[in-house]
């Protein structure tokens, strides 16, 4: 644990002369590839661009909220900015991020397979993502969409701004998500290496599997819903329009039937990353493997019946409200099972202090804090007070930014050597990680206080008494942005000049580390045969082995 950047491998690390990155050359070979690893790298570049854009829009929102009056923009521009921020971050970044990048790259490797079940369909998913992203982005920027990412009817069907291209974009992005999920489910069912039973799959695979089920089952409904809003907007068919006998609350039901499970599309993969990485940095077997695996499925299942908690104040019957509240709290039970098992995995481990470790600690804090406030907002009486205030915004960002981004960054650092064969600078990695965890807290803890004091969401002006906390939040967000810029710089440097990583710099027990870094075009030179349970860092009775990573 002394020098974090020191390599544990005794042999000099080798960079394989021929690997998936250089096996074929030229832009065309990338655009027509069916190699899951190359598709993952293209997803990585795409989602990082989306993240950058979404981040810029977020900063615009935060800068505007520095003063109680108009700071740099008026009401309309502000509405467009938070819409851009929401749509880009949710549909272009968070939903595809971990499944698209790490799911694609690692799922076949972790299963010991040569590729996903349907490689061409996988490429089609990426193209659909690009098409949907282009449509949604140009639509929002040219048309000035101001509905927020939720597209609530009847405002969305009556706003003078352009909406149809955005809705079509989201519809197409949905298909990309469905096809990815379908591909992953079939891959897990049919392409496991010899010896790999279901109980020998790594926990990241379990998480991706549970995510894929939600993607396949929930996404068609949002696809249809946004299409109906589009038809309503263009054709005036009256389905969600009360003046023509339609019911806008029906829209909310259909929207949240997808969009609540969609929260788990975003957070489950992140939980999977943490489960895998936590064992590697603690040098311990995962505590409660089956519990973590099954609780992923539990969250996926319960998540489908919790959507009504978004609608406590939209005129549901008290019985519905109560039922949705109780079901929502079950999500907390499954999440708590995971958190206890993660903490037990860390307990008496030989924890290596690295950038992923800091992200894991951040993740655990944000997950617990965000989860607890989730239970709080699922309580009807409290939700009536907090509904549509910054409290909900803060809760949502604790899970979505806190948990999901921490998982994404932990995974990015942990698997970076596997993907590109080079190491990032651990010192800078830890500096950036600390900045991000700190900046994140500084951004969103004030928002809890603001919401509790009654500041509503989605307004560009606010009473003067809220200014202090808003300035604190904006200051925190610049810290956050600064942390991300540091990461970008050292990762690009690592890509070009970084030290060679060797096959398994973390001395991980994951199947994905059994091949070279970066892997061969066909993943493994010989199909691996699985003889051990996953995450087996020590045999029964063995002491925890201290390893310098």
């Amino acid at each position, binding site marked *: 644990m002394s020098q974090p950047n020191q390599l544990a491998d005794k042999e000099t690390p080798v960079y394989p002369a021929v690997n998936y990155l250089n096996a074929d050359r030229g832009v065309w070979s990338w655009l027509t590839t069916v190699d899951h690893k190359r598709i993952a790298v293209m997803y990585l570049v795409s989602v990082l661009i989306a993240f950058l854009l979404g981040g810029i829009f977020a900063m615009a929102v935060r800068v505007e909220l520095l003063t109680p009056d108009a700071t740099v923009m008026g009401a309309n521009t502000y509405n467009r900015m938070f819409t851009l921020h929401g749509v880009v971050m949710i549909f272009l970044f968070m939903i595809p991020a971990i499944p698209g990048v790490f799911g694609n790259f690692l799922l076949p490797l972790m299963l010991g397979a*040569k590729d996903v079940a*349907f*490689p061409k369909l996988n490429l089609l998913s990426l193209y659909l993502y690009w098409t949907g992203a282009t449509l949604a982005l140009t639509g929002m920027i040219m048309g000035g969409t101001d509905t927020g990412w939720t597209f609530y009817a009847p405002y969305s069907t009556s706003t003078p701004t352009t909406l149809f291209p955005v809705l079509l974009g989201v519809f197409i992005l949905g298909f990309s998500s469905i096809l990815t999920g379908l591909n992953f489910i079939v891959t897990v069912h049919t392409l496991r290496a010899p010896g790999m039973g279901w109980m020998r799959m790594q926990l990241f695979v379990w998480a991706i599997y549970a995510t894929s089920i939600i993607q396949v089952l929930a996404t*068609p409904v949002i696809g249809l819903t946004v299409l109906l809003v589009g*038809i309503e907007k263009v054709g*005036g068919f*009256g*389905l969600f329009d009360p003046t*023509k006998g339609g019911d806008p609350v*029906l829209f909310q039901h259909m929207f949240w039937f997808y969009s609540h499970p969609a929260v788990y599309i975003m957070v489950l993969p992140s939980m999977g990353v943490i489960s895998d990485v936590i064992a590697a940095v603690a040098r311990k077997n995962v505590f409660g493997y089956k519990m973590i695996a099954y609780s992923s499925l539990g969250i996926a299942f319960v998540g489908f019946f919790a959507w009504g908690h978004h609608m406590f104040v939209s005129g549901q019957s008290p019985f519905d409200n109560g039922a949705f509240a109780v079901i929502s709290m079950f999500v907390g039970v499954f999440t708590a099972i995971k958190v206890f098992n993660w903490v037990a995995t860390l307990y008496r481990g030989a924890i290596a202090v690295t950038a992923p470790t800091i992200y894991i600690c951040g993740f655990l804090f944000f997950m617990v804090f965000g989860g607890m406030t989730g239970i709080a907002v699922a309580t009807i009486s409290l939700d009536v007070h907090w509904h549509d205030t910054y409290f909900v915004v803060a809760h949502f960002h604790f899970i979505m930014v806190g948990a999901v981004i921490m998982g994404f960054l932990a995974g990015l650092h942990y698997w970076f050597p596997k993907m590109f064969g080079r190491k990032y600078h651990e010192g800078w990695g830890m500096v950036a990680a600390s900045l991000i965890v700190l900046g994140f807290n500084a951004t969103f803890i004030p928002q809890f206080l603001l919401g509790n004091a009654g500041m509503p969401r989605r307004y560009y002006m606010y009473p003067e008494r809220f200014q202090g906390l808003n300035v604190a939040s904006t200051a925190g967000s610049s810290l956050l942005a600064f942390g991300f810029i540091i990461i970008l710089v050292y990762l690009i440097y690592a890509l070009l000049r970084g030290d060679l990583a060797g096959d398994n710099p973390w001395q991980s027990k994951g199947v994905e580390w059994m091949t070279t870094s970066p892997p061969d075009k066909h993943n493994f030179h010989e199909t691996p045969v699985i003889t051990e349970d996953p995450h087996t860092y020590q045999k029964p009775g063995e002491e925890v082995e201290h390893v310098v990573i």
Partner: protein
Amino acid sequence: MSSSDTHARHPYLAEHYETIEKQDHAVRLGMWLFLGTEVLLFAGLFLGYTVYRHFYHETFHEASRTLNLTLGTINTIVLITSSLSVALAYHAIKHGQRQKCLGLLTFTIICALGFLVIKGFEYQHKFAEGALPGQFYRFHEVTGPGANLFFTIYFLTTGLHAFHVIVGMSVLIWVMKGVWKGKYGPDYYVPVELGGLYWHLVDLVWIFLFPLLYLI
């Protein structure tokens, strides 16, 4: 691995599968999952139907009577027959009867076309009457609240279904091309099976739409 294989690989076996059985299993599973997503796509519209039927019970009942039951029934028979013929086509190719399979697939596609033509006549009639969705509604026979919504749902569900009929036809034409070229036979017929499965789904959706829109 594949280069060291001594056995000849199946011509349609992709590189990342070991055996054709495994590949067949994978594509079947993929197709069933895809059919699941299709059902969920329609589920949203069925939900809309249920909600508005509940809101405007009387009007929906009244509006339902104005649909052409004869044409609807004929279309149902046409689709069920086509489902039978596609199942027989699958059976035929499984037993190596290529000509019979081609004939049955042609018959299925003719049925699909027939369905669309009849549906077209129904649509034309509704257009002429002004029984149109939402803001375009000016049908005089049914004027209760929610009458426009019945026709919104009528056109959205049957329209989405008609779109699936067209997609299903294209899939079957693509399958036919493969049968024509002799790609499929007793040892490899999964694409015919999957095309048939998709066609059954198109049929099944109609089996639910017909009573909901025309009968009750």
